[in-house]
C-alpha cells in the first residue's frame, strides 16, 4: 500500500503539482495556438504555405525532444528526487517561453530569428519531457491505492486547461489590442506573461515535500544507481516500456492532438474560420469536456484502465472522418445563391508594387453578410500589369463567422472529440505509474508517455497538414495518420494489455 495522505493534504499536493504542470502546458501551447502569426514573424513575407509548415516543424521539434527530456530529467528524478527535478523543469520552461516573447522578427535579424526560436523551443520540449512524469508520479505516490485513477486524473486535466488558458489569454489580448497590433507585437504578450505565472508556481512548489515513497527508498538506501540502465537494459522493464508505448500512449497521443490541436488548425486553415470563432469553439468544447477527465479517472479505479482508454481510441477511429466532413460541408460558402446574401460591402482596394517589377497587386476585400446570420470576407487579389492590363485572380473566401446554430453544432463536435481525449488520457497516468517499480518509475513511465504524446501526438498537425498538401489528396487525407496510428495501438492494446490494476505501487 502507498503512504497515502489525509484528503486535505492530498488536495494540497495535487494543487501545487497541477498548477506548475498547467503553466508548463500553457507555455508549450501558446506557440501552437499562434503558429500562423509566428510564421509571418519568423519567415520571409513571400514564404506562403511553407512558412506555416516550417513553423509547425519548429512547434513539432519541441515535441520531438520531449522523450530526451524524459530521459534526462527522469534520471535526475529517480536519483535526487521528484521535487527538485520538477522545480528545475519549471524554471527552464518559464525562462525559454519568456525569451521567445523577446525574439526579434525575420525583418530585423533574418534567419537568426527562426533558429533562436527553434533553440528555445527545444529547451521547452526538454523541460516538459521532465515535468509531466514527475508530477504524475508525485501525485500517484501520495494517493490511496483505490483512488489512484481519481487523484492522478486531476494532473491529467492540466494539459487541457493549459491549452484553455493559452487560448483564453490569446483571445483576450487580441480583442484588447485589435488584430493589427496583435499581429505586429501583441502576440508577444502571452509569452512574456508566462514569467509571472512561473514565479508564482515556483514559490508554491518550494514549499512542497518530497514524495513519501521516494523518501522511504532514499532512507533505505535503495535509490537506483543508474535508472536509465535499469529501465532499458533489463529486458523485463524494456518490454513493458514497449508495450506501454505501442499498446497505449501511441494511440492516446494521436487522439489527444487530433481532438485539441488538429481540430483547431483544420477549422482555421482548411475551413478558413474567423480567428476568434475557431478559438471560441475550442474554448467551449474544452470547458464542457474537462470534468470528464476526473470522471473517467475515477471510473478506471472501479473497472480498470484498459477498456476505457481503448474505447476512446475506437470511437476516434470511427467518427473522425464523418466529423471533419461536417466541418467542411458546413463551412462551404462557394455555392451560396444571391438570394442568401443580406448585404455585401466592399472596402477600398489596396495596392502594392511587386518587387523588381512595374506591376502591382490590387487587393479588394468584400464583407458579405448572409441572411442565416453567417458572414465572411471575399478577398480578390488582381495583378495590374502595365503591358497586359488587369489580370484577375481566383478569389479567396476567409474569416468565416458561423451562424449560431452551426457554431453550437461545431462546439458539440469538438466537445465529442475532447470527450474521447478524456477517455484515453484521464486514466493513463495511473496506468503508467502502476506499470513500473518506484525506483525507476520516473524514467520508465516518462519515456513511453513522451514518445506517444510528443512524437506520435505532437506530429499530428505537422504530418496531417503535410499529407493534405500532397497532390491528389483531399482536405480529409491528413486524418489517415491519426486513424492509422490509433488503429494499430487499439489492436496491440486490446490483445496484449492487462486490465488488472496493480494495487501495490510501493515496490
Amino acid at each position, binding site marked *: 500500500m502507498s503512504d497515502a495522505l489525509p484528503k486535505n493534504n492530498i488536495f494540497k499536493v495535487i494543487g501545487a503539482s497541477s498548477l506548475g504542470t498547467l503553466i508548463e502546458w500553457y507555455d508549450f501551447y501558446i506557440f501552437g495556438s499562434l503558429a500562423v502569426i509566428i510564421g509571418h514573424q519568423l519567415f520571409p513575407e513571400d*514564404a506562403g504555405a*511553407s512558412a506555416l*509548415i*516550417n513553423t509547425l*516543424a519548429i512547434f*513539432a*521539434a519541441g515535441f*520531438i525532444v520531449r522523450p530526451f527530456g524524459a530521459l534526462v530529467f527522469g534520471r535526475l528524478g529517480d536519483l535526487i528526487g521528484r521535487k527538485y527535478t520538477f522545480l528545475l523543469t519549471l524554471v527552464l520552461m518559464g525562462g525559454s517561453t519568456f525569451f521567445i516573447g523577446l525574439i526579434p522578427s525575420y525583418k530585423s535579424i533574418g534567419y537568426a530569428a527562426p533558429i533562436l526560436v527553434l533553440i528555445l523551443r527545444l529547451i521547452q520540449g526538454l523541460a516538459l519531457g521532465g515535468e509531466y512524469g514527475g508530477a504524475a508520479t508525485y501525485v500517484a505516490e501520495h494517493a490511496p491505492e483505490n483512488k489512484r485513477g481519481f487523484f492522478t486524473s486531476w494532473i491529467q486535466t492540466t494539459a487541457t486547461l493549459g491549452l484553455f488558458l493559452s487560448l483564453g489569454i490569446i483571445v483576450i489580448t487580441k480583442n484588447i489590442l485589435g488584430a493589427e497590433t496583435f499581429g505586429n507585437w501583441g502576440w508577444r504578450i502571452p509569452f512574456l506573461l508566462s514569467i509571472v505565472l512561473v514565479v508564482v508556481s515556483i514559490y508554491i512548489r518550494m514549499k512542497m515535500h518530497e514524495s513519501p515513497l521516494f523518501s522511504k527508498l532514499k532512507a533505505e538506501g535503495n535509490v537506483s544507481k543508474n535508472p536509465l540502465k535499469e529501465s532499458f537494459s533489463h*529486458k*523485463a*522493464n524494456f*518490454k*513493458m516500456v*514497449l*508495450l506501454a*508505448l*505501442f499498446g497505449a500512449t501511441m494511440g492516446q497521443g494521436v487522439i489527444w492532438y487530433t481532438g485539441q490541436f488538429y481540430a483547431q488548425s483544420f477549422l482555421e486553415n482548411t475551413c478558413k474560420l474567423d480567428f476568434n470563432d475557431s478559438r471560441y469553439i475550442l474554448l467551449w468544447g474544452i470547458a464542457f469536456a474537462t470534468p470528464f477527465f476526473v470522471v473517467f479517472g475515477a471510473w478506471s479505479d472501479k473497472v480498470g484502465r484498459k477498456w476505457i482508454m481503448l474505447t476512446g481510441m475506437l470511437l476516434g477511429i470511427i467518427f473522425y472522418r464523418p466529423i471533419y466532413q461536417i466541418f467542411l460541408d458546413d463551412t462551404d460558402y462557394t455555392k451560396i445563391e444571391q438570394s442568401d446574401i443580406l448585404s455585401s460591402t466592399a472596402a477600398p482596394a489596396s495596392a502594392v508594387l511587386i518587387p523588381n517589377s512595374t506591376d502591382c497587386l490590387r487587393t479588394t476585400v468584400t464583407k458579405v453578410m448572409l441572411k442565416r446570420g453567417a458572414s465572411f470576407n471575399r478577398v480578390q487579389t488582381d495583378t495590374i500589369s502595365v503591358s497586359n492590363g488587369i489580370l484577375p485572380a481566383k478569389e479567396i473566401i476567409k474569416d468565416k463567422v458561423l451562424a449560431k446554430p452551426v457554431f453550437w453544432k461545431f462546439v458539440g463536435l469538438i466537445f465529442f472529440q475532447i470527450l474521447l481525449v478524456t477517455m484515453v488520457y484521464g486514466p493513463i497516468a495511473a496506468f503508467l505509474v502502476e506499470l*513500473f*517499480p*518506484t525506483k525507476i518509475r520516473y524514467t520508465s513511465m516518462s519515456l513511453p508517455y513522451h*514518445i506517444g504524446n510528443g*512524437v506520435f501526438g505532437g*506530429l499530428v498537425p*505537422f*504530418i496531417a497538414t*503535410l499529407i493534405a498538401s*500532397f*497532390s491528389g489528396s483531399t482536405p480529409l487525407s491528413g486524418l489517415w495518420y491519426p486513424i492509422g496510428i490509433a488503429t494499430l495501438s487499439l*489492436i*496491440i492494446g486490446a*490483445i*496484449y*494489455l*492487462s486490465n*488488472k490494476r*496493480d494495487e*501495490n*505501487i510501493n*515496490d
Partner: protein
Amino acid sequence: MNTLKKFLGLIWMVLGPLAMTFLFLQAIEKVGLTHTDIERTNTILQWGIILFIFLPISLGLMIFGFYAWKGEYDKLPENSEEV
C-alpha cells in the same frame, strides 16, 4: 490468446521495416517533386525529421514483435518483483 499474440508478433516484426521502406520511398518521391531551391530545402528538412524520428520507433516495433513472438507477453508481471 497466446497463440494470437505470438502470430501477431511476426506481423509487428515485418511492419517495422515495411513502414520505414514506405517512408523512404515517400521521401524520395516528394523531394524529387520539388525543384526550386527553398522549397526543396524545406521538403528535405521535413522528410529528414520524419525519417529521423520514425527510424528508432520502427526498430522498437520490431523488438516488440520479437518479444511477442518469443512469448514474453504471454503472462504480464503482476507486481514489481516480477518485473
